[in-house]
């Protein structure tokens, strides 16, 4: 065990902290799931990119700093500690980019990655379809081959596309081959949303923000250069992406440690309402956030030692998503009827309820944990 930061890491932290202190907006931005809030968030992303903070762990040629995993964690810690805005580019940077790094051609990487880092292209994901939520293999949207034009024609519908109404590009799976085998015959497409034949319809979420969209495809043409990975192998490509979505990269411990610290501050603020039983719950929340942090430190150490997290990333997903709900439920209990008004905690609570559902429901994650980590029989 060595829990000290190197001089280089300390310098990195100091630099990040200084930049964040100078640049984080004093007032919270409006919600990134509304149209004008999204625009404000994109401005923020571009400011980050201008000073090379938008994709710290990427190579410099794409706008990054080649930051190590530890430095990435340091940046995230400081980012949440500074109360900096939600990352509306996260679908691209945290979900699509790892796949591009792994499966993209050099041309694709050179073309897409800098535009993504600069928040010029704004990516949404197209996984879910009506009738296919966590069950990606049930996808029915089609990609028909157009040999003459050298590409594919997309037909079908995607739904639950987060912030789809404000984005410029979509990545997702389409059925390019016969559907006899549920896991074969899918291809992974990168689709500009201004492609003729693509229609985006936004609709509101539980928290009132217009954060979801349905996306319709009617014979929309995309060229071969927009297929990521091998044709018909989209399932395997997508699995790598969802692994990354569930994995370490999306939910840094900083987020939960920061929220738990805010909750403790709320206890002092609400002193008469903070009964012993509630204080015990707040303590429990802090403790789980602390545990999540220690788990992550151990996991990053393993990653750096070359061990892939594999199914262990399902442990992360279940843990942080249930922690996030407990954290916000406790906050609402502490706030009493104030918690029923529209505020940061009540919005966070509603947002947290999606945690166990998206990125593979926690039911599916528990199946994975039981089958792959504990070795229980599939059937």
């Amino acid at each position: 065990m060595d829990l000290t930061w190197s001089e280089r890491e300390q310098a990195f932290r100091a630099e990040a902290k200084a930049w964040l202190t100078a640049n984080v907006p004093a007032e919270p931005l409006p919600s990134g799931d509304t149209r004008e809030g999204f625009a404000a968030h994109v401005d923020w992303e571009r400011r980050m990119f201008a000073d090379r903070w938008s994709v710290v762990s990427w190579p410099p040629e794409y706008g990054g700093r080649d930051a190590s995993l530890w430095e990435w964690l340091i940046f995230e810690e400081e980012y949440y500690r500074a109360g900096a805005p939600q990352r509306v580019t996260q679908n691209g940077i945290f979900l699509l980019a790892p796949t591009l790094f792994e499966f993209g051609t050099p041309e694709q990487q050179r073309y897409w990655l800098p535009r993504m880092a600069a928040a010029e292209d704004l990516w949404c994901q197209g996984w879910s379809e009506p009738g296919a939520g966590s069950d990606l293999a049930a996808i029915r949207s089609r990609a028909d081959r157009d040999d003459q034009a050298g590409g594919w024609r997309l037909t079908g519908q995607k739904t639950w596309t987060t912030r789809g109404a404000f984005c410029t590009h979509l990545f997702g799976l389409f059925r390019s081959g016969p559907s006899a085998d549920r896991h074969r015959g899918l291809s992974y497409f990168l689709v500009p949303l201004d492609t003729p034949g693509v229609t985006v319809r936004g609709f509101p979420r539980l928290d009132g923000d217009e954060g979801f969209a349905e996306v319709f495809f009617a014979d929309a043409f995309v060229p071969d250069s927009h297929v990521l990975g091998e044709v018909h192998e989209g399932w395997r490509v997508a699995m790598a992406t969802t692994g990354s979505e569930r994995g370490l990269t999306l939910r840094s411990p900083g987020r939960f440690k920061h929220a738990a610290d805010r909750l403790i501050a709320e206890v002092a603020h609400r002193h008469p309402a903070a009964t012993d039983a509630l204080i015990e719950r707040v303590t429990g929340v802090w403790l789980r956030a602390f545990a999540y942090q220690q788990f992550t430190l151990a996991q990053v150490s393993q990653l750096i030692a070359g061990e892939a997290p594999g199914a262990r990333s399902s442990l992360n997903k279940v843990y942080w998503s249930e922690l996030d709900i407990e954290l916000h439920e406790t906050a609402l209990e502490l706030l009493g009827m104030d918690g029923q008004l529209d505020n940061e905690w009540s919005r966070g609570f509603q947002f947290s309820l999606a945690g166990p559902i998206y990125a593979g429901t926690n039911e599916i994650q528990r199946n994975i944990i039981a089958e792959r980590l504990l070795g229980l029989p599939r059937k």
Partner: protein
Amino acid sequence: MRFAPTAEQQDLRIAVRELMRDRCPSSVVRAEPDDPAINGLAEEICRMGALGLLVAERDGGLGLDENYLVPLMVETGWAAAPLPLVDSIAFAPGLLSHAGYSDGPDYRKRWCVADPAKRAETRFGQPAGLLLRGGFGGTGAVQLVDLDTAVRSHLAAMDPSADVHDVRGGQELAIVDDPVLVRQAWQRGVLAAAAQLIGLARHMLEMTVDYVAGRTQFGVPVGSFQAVKHRLATALLAVEFAAPVVDRAGHSMASANPGADRDVSSAKALASEAARAVGREAIQCHGAMGYTTEYDLQLYLKRAWALAADWGSASWHRARLAGHLGMSLTGSTPAG
């Protein structure tokens, strides 16, 4: 000994249920506060005499007791009726009668909003002419205020259909500080809120069962997965063991049982927890569908959250219950 509704109570329940299914579909819950459909619903509720349910016959009311209040509130809760029913039907009558505001046929039109915790906040205040301020925990005085003379401003809330307002000032019309009446009013408000939570919980559970039985994933109905079955069985357990406690609390109040306060707190604690638990399972079983405002689940969910926190949260009532059981908590248990 018979722990079951009478035929009359059952008839009332059916009449209210039919009215609600007819006049309070989800489109009415979604409507703006001044929508004619909400006014129409309010008129129908007046017409059936519900505002006078607990008002003595000599004062022009129906002269019924809390055994009738419970089914009325379960059914209006099921429908998430966007009106101040807990305030007007349960909390207000004894106070208004005492203050001389229930004589003559005029009381039928008298909708009230309550702010027992004096948060300067009201919900569903649109039809109301009177504000009842104070009385949280069944103690202190309740101030009757002319709502039209108060300063009101809209507040953004989790439940947008609740029409929440910040309300300050207003002309004081009367003060009621009779401790028996204030306690009774509070207990009735708590009981009514508990009953509405039972209705809301049942509604969310019904919607979820329908959804998972119909929706297919991995080639089979979602409702055939054992994890989903067990979640919903747990949700049903919560409702089925809370509902008789609410019935019991209604009976204890109606029969002036000295344990009524204990039973009412028991009812609210369990009903709040049941509604929250059902809501939690409902949203998880619905997947992303439960997470959009286009689908109706959220209407009932947000109402349940608010009502679970209102009229004393589950924690608040547990602390009160601990006192009734002879165990005193050292921590404070504040209002609101």
